[in-house]
């Protein structure tokens, strides 16, 4: 009798619970789960636009024989390997400096460095494009101070185009990461530093042996977020190169290639879906590696 009663109550709670979450479950199902499985299904098909037929692992084979894919993969990895460490280190150093209460105009500096990440992605890309054009202000300034003799083709030479993309995303996202570190630095107990000072630990050692280890969870978090962001890099290269990833495919990223395969070229939805799974695998792999590298060794 009693068990029947609680069973009824349990069913009542279960039902209510499910009713409460039903709308979000339905929305997640339709807009998240379904597309994920649908794109996996799509990746087994190939053909022109809507004229698709089953291709099995044909798209995976195509990946190996596609020089543009290899180029896009190489570029993406290059951006990630070069840019993420530079940005994280820069953000960490800036945060440590700007955490110093004795510094004047600290609010101004914090705001100034954070401000780029509030800028619209498209707006700043367009701005960078005009600043770094052959006769733009950057070349003129560099020539005026005598650093270079002739203008650098920031957007017309493959090497410099890569440099420009890295510059652009570093400028945009360093402040964003710095804010995380600044917040975390507030939580480090000042007495630890005081104790270290009394023991005669120099400033650089306090940074590497106290600040960095104490910030480890935040560093891990920002590294993973930045990794995912860089692997999915799209807006900056799209706007800097008018959607082409040029010159000579030197700035094409996987996401931009997916976009081109879907919207600019003869639409090959299946192949584009296959490449999007490459991104998924890469993100999972790199995140796992970072978790593994930062694990607590006991």
């Amino acid at each position, binding site marked *: 009798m009693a068990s029947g009663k609680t069973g009824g109550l349990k069913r009542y709670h279960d039902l209510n619970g499910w009713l409460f979450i039903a709308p979000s479950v339905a929305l997640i199902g339709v807009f998240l789960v379904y597309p994920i499985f649908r794109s996996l299904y799509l990746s087994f098909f190939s053909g022109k636009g809507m004229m698709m037929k089953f291709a099995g692992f044909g798209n995976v084979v195509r990946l190996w024989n596609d020089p543009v894919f290899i180029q896009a993969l190489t570029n993406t990895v290059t951006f990630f390997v070069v840019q993420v460490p530079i940005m994280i280190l820069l953000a960490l150093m800036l945060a440590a400096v700007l955490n110093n209460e004795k510094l004047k105009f600290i609010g101004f500096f914090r705001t100034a460095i954070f401000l780029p990440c509030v800028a619209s992605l498209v707006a700043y890309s367009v701005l960078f494009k005009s600043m770094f054009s*052959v006769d733009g202000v950057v070349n003129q300034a560099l020539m005026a101070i005598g650093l270079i003799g002739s203008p650098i*083709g920031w957007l017309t030479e493959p090497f410099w185009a890569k440099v420009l993309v890295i510059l652009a995303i570093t400028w945009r996202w360093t402040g964003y990461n710095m804010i995380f570190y600044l917040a975390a630095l507030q939580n480090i107990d000042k007495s630890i530093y005081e104790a270290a000072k009394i023991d005669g630990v120099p400033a650089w050692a306090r940074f590497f042996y106290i600040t960095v280890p104490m910030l480890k969870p935040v560093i891990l978090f920002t590294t993973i977020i930045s990794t995912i962001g860089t692997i999915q890099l799209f807006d900056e290269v799209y706007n800097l190169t008018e959607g082409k990833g040029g010159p000579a495919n030197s700035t094409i990223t996987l996401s931009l290639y997916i976009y081109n395969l879907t919207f600019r070229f003869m639409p090959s939805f299946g192949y584009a879906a296959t490449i999007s799974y490459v991104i998924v695998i890469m993100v999972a792999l790199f995140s796992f590696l970072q978790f593994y590298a930062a694990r607590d060794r006991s």
Partner: protein
Amino acid sequence: MNKMILSRLAAGLFAGASLLASTAAFAGEVTVWCWDPNFNVAIMKEAAARYTAKHPETTFNIVDFAKADVEQKLQTGLSSGTTDALPDIVLIEDYGAQKYLQSFPGAFAELSSKIDFSGFAPYKVELMTLDGAVYGMPFDSGVTGLYYRKDYLEQAGFKPEDMQDLTWDRFIEIGKEVEAKTGKKMLGLDINDAGFIRILMQSAGGWYFDKDGNLSIADNAALKAALETTQKILQANVHKPSAGWTEWVNAFTSGDVATVTTGVWITGTVKAQADQSGKWGVAPIPKLSIEGAGHASNLGGSSWYVTANSAEKDEAIDFLNEVYAKDVDFYQKILADRGAVGSLLAARTGAAYSEADAFFGGEKVWQNFSDWLAKVPAVNYGVFTNEVDTAVTAHLPSLGQGANVDEVLKAIDSQAQGQIQ
């Protein structure tokens, strides 16, 4: 970095939904998507005004997007199958016509039975024909010309007669003279755009594909000559490099370069610089030094297509037929106002075509363009022009660094093979 895409998608959805609502509320409204407010949009507005004068119950909603946005929205709408969000009439660039017709069968209305296509330039009709049926309304032509600054060339010692019947080698020599005497570069070149290569290639009757649409790169004499010429220009350094369309346009509107070789549709942009009136001339484009090469070529050009599931399909077709296929006076107006060279052959007998243009120092430029139009070699644009274009632009920088042209052709070939499946 991903939020941007999401918000764009959302904006697209809302735009689509509001479009749907407006078409439902006003029966008889024809929605048109096109790009370039100074050209296609303005011309479509002129055409709409002419039609509503006779059919007051029809209204038009002409939507101005960037070209890439029109293509993206169209491709998204077609592939998702939500045809409600699509316009009644859409502008498609000729290079992409077969791509849409072949990858989305049944998406566009067949017009063969409703419109007489015999009056149009045959190459235009052919590129919108699939399995014997015609799917579009031919619009503007991209017949090319060499626009040059008479004042700069005069300073360098060249008269307009010297600009006729050039070869590209001679063009480069002139370019060196011009730079020595005036300090100006001869032309602007966008290293991310293969348009210049396509002009050269088509002027010798070649394309990335043969007549049957098969990839033809490795043994393509016209493409090889086009690449060699581009290499000579890059190495002679008579060009001003530009990154993207805006910079490229800016190179000649600001007076930094002495010539522009491109499609006739640029006329409006050239003439927009009123202070440069009388300083420009137009000559036939230089010739490649291979057999079968000529002075006529084409770049771009686009046509109107009616979507098959449009509620106002019949009205839209009637509109296109009445204005674009019959109204010769309309073509005079858009030529005089916008520099649009249509592909309706009858239009060329009209008055505007034989008039002299004061901006070009009283030259009869339109007569010239229409003569050259008749000589444009017909080629098969195939369905993969964008893909091969990407392969070509990917190898342009190495050309400038002196790479062997045969090696570059091989590299383009292998990249293109990987792209088109």
